């Protein structure tokens, strides 16, 4: 499969202290390790097992993921913005690959 492509949606600017909603999506098969191929052999598990979101280096939200999360894992969560800065999003794959995305936000 192609390299997983993260997508993040959040407002560009907010008022200080407002709670914003962040939506994230990453393209990934999330192979559960339960399925079998044509020869009846188990297809090895390969999922995104951890997702985290940081704001200016401080943790905001994170998630431990099991194979029961759907393909192309989607997460929607909230964050409080007190100052301008950058949100950093990290997805960790079973094979050790790390996919990241960054989004700046301006607090008025």
């Amino acid at each position, binding site marked *: 499969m192609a390299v997983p492509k993260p997508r993040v949606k959040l407002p560009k600017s907010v008022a200080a202290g407002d*709670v*914003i909603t962040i939506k994230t999506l990453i393209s990934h098969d999330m192979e*559960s390790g*339960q*399925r*079998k191929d044509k020869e009846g052999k188990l297809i090895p598990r390969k999922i995104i097992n951890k997702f985290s979101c940081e*704001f200016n280096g*401080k*943790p*905001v*939200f*994170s*998630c*431990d*993921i*099991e*194979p*029961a*999360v*759907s*393909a192309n*894992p*989607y*997460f*929607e*969560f*909230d*964050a*409080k913005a007190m100052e301008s800065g950058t949100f950093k999003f990290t997805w960790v794959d079973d094979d050790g690959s790390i996919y990241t995305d960054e989004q700046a936000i301006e607090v008025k």
Partner: protein
Amino acid sequence: MHLTRRQTLGLCAGATVLATIGPAIPAAFADAAAAERSLMEFTGGKTPEAGKITLTAPEIAENGNTVPLSISVEGEMTEASYVQSVLLLADGNPNPGVATFHFSPMSGRASATTRMRLAKTQTVIAVAKMSDGSVYMDKKQVKVTIGGCGG
């Protein structure tokens, strides 16, 4: 658990649909006991109380591969007192664990949405752990027409 006639009929209909058009389901499923074990591990042996946490899931999921699921927990999110984490469990999947959300005072509001796989009709459980150690639970039964694990 007492089943009304209507529920029994519904379950039978669901089972028939699964048997005829559903994919072959792997033999090994987690059971309520396995889910209970994961729950106790998460809460540290405490029995969760009802309330505070709300789990939103569809009553009937046509496709078990992507079932939308939201949780939200009441309560303030300050350094002194906040919602630490929320565990999601599905007691009829091959493994009961679905995901664990970790919040922080920076979250502002303890709510999250994701999409999950459900192998068959089952109960989805959400457990919230507060920073003071108290635990709260909500559960919801989701009827699944086409299972979402393997096949």
